[in-house]
């Protein structure tokens, strides 16, 4: 199994641990990862300003993966959602696709839709499967409660992303539980983390984040688990900013990336998984084995 790994703009600059842990997990599960240096921004941040430019950005990445004959696996859910949106839009009509291909042709690229777009969770769940992962688990968590956060852009709009059941998704919970952890029921689980508004309307953005953290804590969670770059920045970096600015820190709930959670149970050490890069300390999680 071979994929082109799409990191996006935020991971190399701000969330190194997501890249580190993903590579480590892929290696443990014998999946080949190819890096395409020419990858550009997925296009998601541009949607507010100009739809075509966001489609063009997405298309170039997919065309690059296609050129290498590879499917693309995204780590960020916003990125994943953007690629699926572009894929969906291009299937619809030719005018838009033609216009974009004219631009891509100048660089020797063409988008035909051959490259499949996946999120890392779908690869783990569908392509590798729970049983295969279970086999590689060397230590299981005991008595740990995880608030699993699905995020928005992988789940919705469901006709575009086809990731999981949008109303009652389960694949992420099952992936969490394969490590022995318990994925708890919590009311806000499908709510937005607030990331898309951070930098635009910080109060609103951080209100949404805090609501989720408080609800997760109240539901008994030890950790919040996410699998998206933006969600993780929100629950980790921004949560730290919320605490630093004097908000009630008693509800503070450390967030862990799924690849870090899984990686530990696969026997990979904390340093390789970049546990130290998380703002809110998650080192104590190893005590749950």
């Amino acid at each position, binding site marked *: 199994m071979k994929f082109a790994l799409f990191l996006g703009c935020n991971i190399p600059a701000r969330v190194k641990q997501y890249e580190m842990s993903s590579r480590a997990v892929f290696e443990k599960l014998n999946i080949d990862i190819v890096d395409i240096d020419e990858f550009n921004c997925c296009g998601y941040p*541009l949607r*507010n300003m100009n739809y075509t430019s966001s489609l063009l950005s997405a298309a170039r990445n997919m065309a690059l993966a296609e050129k290498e004959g590879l499917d693309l696996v995204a780590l960020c859910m916003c990125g994943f959602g953007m690629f699926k949106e572009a894929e969906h839009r291009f299937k619809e009509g030719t005018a838009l696709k033609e216009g974009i291909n004219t631009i891509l042709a100048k660089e020797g690229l063409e988008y035909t839709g051959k490259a499949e777009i996946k999120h890392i969770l779908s690869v783990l769940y569908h392509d590798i499967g729970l049983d295969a992962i279970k086999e590689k688990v060397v230590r299981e968590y005991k008595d740990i409660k995880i608030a699993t956060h699905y995020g928005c852009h992988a789940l919705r709009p469901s006709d575009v992303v086809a990731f999981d059941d949008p109303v009652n998704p389960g694949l992420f919970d099952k992936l969490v539980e394969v490590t022995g952890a318990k994925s708890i029921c919590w009311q806000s689980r499908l*709510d937005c983390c607030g990331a898309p508004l951070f930098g635009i309307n910080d109060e609103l953005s951080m209100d949404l984040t805090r609501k989720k953290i408080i609800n997760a804590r109240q539901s008994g969670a030890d950790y919040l688990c996410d699998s998206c770059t933006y969600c993780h920045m929100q629950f980790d*970096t921004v949560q730290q900013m919320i605490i630093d600015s004097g908000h009630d820190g008693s509800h503070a709930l450390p967030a862990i990336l799924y690849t870090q959670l899984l990686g530990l149970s696969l026997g990979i050490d904390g340093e390789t998984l970049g546990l130290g890069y998380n703002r809110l300390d998650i080192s104590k999680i190893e005590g749950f084995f």
Partner: protein
Amino acid sequence: MFYSISLYVALVIFIIGLVYKVSSWFFLKISVESKGASTRFFTALKGIVSAIYSVRILTLLKVFFLDVIIQRKILQEDLLRWLAHVLIYWAFMLLLIMHALDSLITSTIFPNYTPTINPFMFLRDLFGFLVIVGLCLAIYRRFILKAPRLKTNVMDHYTILLLAVIMLSGVFLEAAKTGSYSIYTDMVEEYAGIYDAEEMRPLTALWVENFGVVSADVQGPFEDELLEEGRELHEMSCAACHSRPHWAFMGNSVAYSVRGIATALDNAGIHTLLWYIHFLACFIGLAYLPFSKFFHIFTSPLSILANSVMNRDDSEAVNIETRQALEFDACTHCGQCTSRCSVGIVFEQFKNINILPSEKIQSLKKVASKKDMDREEFLHILDGAYLCTNCRRCTDVCPAGINLEDLWFNMKEGMFKSGYPEFSLLSPLSYYRGLMRDTISEQDYKKPLTQARKAITEGYDLIKDDSKVISISAHDNEFKDESLSSQASTFKDCFGCQTCTNVCPVVANYENPKEKLGLLPHQIMYSLGLGIKELTLGSNMLWDCVTCYQCQESCPQGVKVTEVLFELKNLAVDNASETNA
């Protein structure tokens, strides 16, 4: 005489230019609270001294070797460019030291030095050859390979042209001197004391045979005895300073190929002309250096070294500002940053050159120099500059070590103070700015956002006055069937159940959502149905939508609510940009 005068003139201009440029690093205002030039100068001095007399000297030495000498940053990215650059760089430096400064350096170290003896003669041609190969690679890269979005400007042309003129005139000069009979006779008179052509005939024969001189009167084939006699004279008066010219392989090849017209060229004094071209080109290059791309010889190493020991948190703000002024001059316009820019492709859509980092830095330099700039140009630069995801790739690959990420941030924050609105602030491109909010004052942080919102909702008065009664009969028919995509026109299927509003987390966040948002999601759908463009484009709901797609997912009629909002955002930006221009 003329040579000395022009050299000194060039040197003086060079020094004046140098002083002017270096002082500008202490005068250029980049940050909000700029300190005076003398404060900046002494703080910089302190910083430099404390870096050298500390353990950081090791970093400086390592970085000097790896990044200044070896050019590791380029090597990691692109072998062709690295080759082109080091060939030009190393070989030119060696030519400068060994050949241009031979009277100062080479003849001091090697007392028996002459330019026409080996190894110096061979090395001169070797180094010149390497520079020419490097130049060819550079020309190939810029003009034939044509990487997408690689921009070549006047300064790039000048740089290549000047080097080419210096190198080629040198080669041709060498060729001209090799074949020149007039120079030969002058030299024989001076060093062998022979003035009579008949008397010097054996020597001339040898020099025609073995040293490339072209004489109208003395031509081969020659008898061995004559050559033997010539060899004796040669050993006495010439051999100490002259190796066989075929070691000067470039000049010699050219001399050989033009030997047919060598006498004519000699009579025309071509070697004098070439000599003038050669040294004048060098002196012009020298005088103009501080204002040209060649200035990077000094500024880029400084930038590389400074950035290796400075960082945002620990370094003095004053020194960071000085460094950033220096960084503007350290850019070599190599285009490495642009080739790795994550939003480079978007240039093909927006055609705003300031999206591309290598062009952005030139424009921002203009902004920093406070050159009188009209609103249109200023906004054009700000628009392009804000289209950046802060991915850091440009910073990671810059071979001049420029901390572009910090430069972009500081310059943009400075530009926001102008009060001109920047709409791209209302997008996730601002996430990075949010993460950096603790580095700026709350007022400075909020102001551009408020301004952008104000400007984008400008002119949509209907929404601002709650008491106004909306006349349905006067609805905007055009908008109803306008460019909305197939997705957005699904608003027509809305039957008013208000589910979208009820699942919206933003609406749920407020006690009085209508007050904060202007219009709620279902109200936006109604407004579109009634063709009242004004209401929708002026609402805050557009910019406070968190794009979670709950509305769209839950709509029983399949109205693509989120898509509608996206399209309205795009429309609002387009309209506002038009009015803004």
